[in-house]
């Protein structure tokens, strides 16, 4: 069972909700793994008490050009969707930091001038905090191939029947978010009642609709008397999974690194609703 937590806008509470949902489900006797796929700025680990972590370096294949074999035909340049290849003065030149490792140029090159070599892009850290296993992908500074690393984090902890993976997504609605939510059984979109969040939420919903993924929205930092966001969701017929109230106490607890118990305690009814959505998805998925 794969559950992604995404949002569109950053800072709405994806990591907060990922941690709280993981702990809540674990306290209900589930076998939970938390995967931090926000590989450009992973921070779920800051709130986990794990002791020593296991590390694995991750590489991605990038083409290398043998200029003595390159005939400058330009097939590779034409094929590359990321402008990572250019034929300059009759020879192909690669700009590896723009490469997305699709491998197309190596297949397309008919003169045998291209072969792939592995370059390191990041690290996967694995640890456990009590009954919760957690994986963190951390992209190396200066690297941009986050989808490649996200894919490896997801592969490291494959989907198993009877187990729940909670996957913390990067913000935005582009490749890193798409790689994270892809093939997930359900997505919770975390939104706050602000114009920025609502704008990005709508984009995230469109993205998930196009991908054919099931989702519901967690309204976070909800203020009493404000109903613009919930009204918008009701109008769109979008399922509201839970409404979490804005709380200064919670913000203070967050700053000290110890907010999870307080959040679960003060919003227990809301987490039970989230659990029910997960359980009902689970019944459907595990029947298939």
């Amino acid at each position, binding site marked *: 069972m794969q559950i992604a937590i995404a949002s569109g806008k950053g800072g709405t509470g994806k990591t907060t909700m990922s941690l709280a949902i993981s702990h809540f489900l674990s306290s209900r006797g589930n076998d939970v793994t938390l995967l931090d796929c926000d590989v450009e700025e992973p921070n779920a680990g800051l709130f986990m008490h794990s002791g020593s972590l296991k590390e694995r370096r991750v590489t991605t294949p990038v083409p290398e050009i043998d200029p003595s074999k390159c005939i400058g035909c330009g097939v590779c340049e034409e094929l590359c969707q990321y402008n990572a290849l250019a034929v300059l*003065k009759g020879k192909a030149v690669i700009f590896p930091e*723009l490469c997305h490792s699709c491998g197309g140029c190596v297949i397309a090159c008919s003169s045998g001038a291209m072969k792939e070599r592995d370059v390191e892009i990041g690290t996967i850290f694995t640890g456990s905090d009590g009954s919760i296993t957690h994986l963190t992908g951390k992209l190396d500074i200066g690297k941009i191939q986050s989808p490649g690393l996200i894919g490896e984090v997801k592969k490291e902890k494959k989907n198993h029947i009877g187990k729940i993976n909670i996957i913390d997504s990067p913000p935005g609605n582009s490749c890193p978010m798409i790689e994270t939510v892809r093939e997930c059984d359900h997505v919770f979109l975390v939104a706050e009642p602000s114009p920025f969040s609502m704008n990005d939420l709508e984009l995230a919903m469109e993205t998930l609709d196009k991908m054919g993924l099931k989702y519901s929205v967690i309204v976070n930092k909800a203020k009493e008397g404000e109903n613009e966001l919930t009204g918008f969701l009701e109008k769109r017929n979008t399922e509201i999974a839970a409404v979490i109230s804005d709380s200064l106490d919670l913000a203070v607890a967050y700053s000290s690194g110890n907010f999870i118990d307080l959040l679960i305690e003060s919003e227990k009814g809301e987490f039970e609703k989230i659990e029910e959505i997960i359980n009902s998805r689970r019944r459907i998925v595990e029947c298939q």
Partner: protein
Amino acid sequence: MKIAVTATGHDLESSTDPRFGRAQGFIIYDSETEEFSYVDNNQNYQSVQGAGIQSAKHVIDAGAEILITGNIGPKAYTALNSANVTILLCRESTVKDSIESWKKGELEETSQANVSGHWGGM
């Protein structure tokens, strides 16, 4: 000798474009015949990444030995340098005035990128 100038319009009276990778286009000026042509850069203007490299390719393919522009990033610099294109930096003016400045030897040559890239690395 051919000179490429990043330009916001199609003729010598156009303003220079301070950007290189996402310049709107290039005026290719021939100093011997004093004729010029325009190369559109719309595709790179809108590209997600690697605009500098593909713009460098336009300049190289046009046969220019000198480029006059406002700013140059690291990957564009690498690409232009591999084809021995001399890069001269100019302040905003018209294409015509920047060519005149070059003729008088007033433009400064850069031997490195003067702005950082947008996509990490290098």
